[in-house]
């Protein structure tokens, strides 16, 4: 049982690290601000979640588990709010996103704020 938990925790940590690294590569690789935001979204949701679940499996009893769950909950509540505020401020200050030409139908564009 103990070995099983250890293996599960290791797997979760490994997956979380891979997701975080992918997000880190994405933030350097993507062409503009709005696409970079999606890369950060990966590290913030599943990357952080997997690492915290991996830590939970290390010590599946007592107060530490509750605190880790609280950190996970706060991360999941806070990050969409922060990225929405960021995106809204960026669009409001006339930072135009780079769009794919084929999908650029004039009617769908948002009105100027």
């Amino acid at each position, binding site marked *: 049982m103990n070995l099983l938990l250890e293996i599960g925790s290791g797997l979760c*940590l490994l997956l979380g690290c891979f997701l975080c690294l992918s997000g880190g590569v994405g*933030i350097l690789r993507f062409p503009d*601000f709005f696409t970079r935001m999606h890369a*950060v979204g990966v*590290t913030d949701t599943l990357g952080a979640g997997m690492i915290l679940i991996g830590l939970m499996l290390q010590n599946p009893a007592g*107060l530490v588990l509750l605190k880790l769950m609280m*950190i996970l909950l706060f991360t999941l509540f806070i990050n969409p709010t922060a990225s929405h505020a960021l995106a809204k401020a960026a669009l409001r200050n006339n930072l135009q996103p780079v769009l794919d030409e084929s999908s650029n139908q004039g009617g769908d564009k948002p009105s100027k704020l």
Partner: protein
Amino acid sequence: MLTAATIAILVVMLLAIIRCVVGPTLYDRILAFNMFGTKTVLLISILGFLMGRPEFLDIALVYALINFISVIGVLRFSDSVEFKHSLQEQTSTKEGKQ
């Protein structure tokens, strides 16, 4: 495994700092800073396990909250009139030089 996770997160933090320094616009920098903060929370939690000191989780919790407040605060400031004014002055002087 915990050590490997620590190293991976440090690497991600390095990538975020590179974007923070390179970032062409202000918002890229704020985004990278936000990501850096989230990764710091994870790093502190992992270090708590690595050193066998679960009290570190409290610090991680507080850091998560402070990170959110600071990002919102910076955004709020960047919306202010004075800030936009100084930004416009900067760009106009740059254009004047060119």
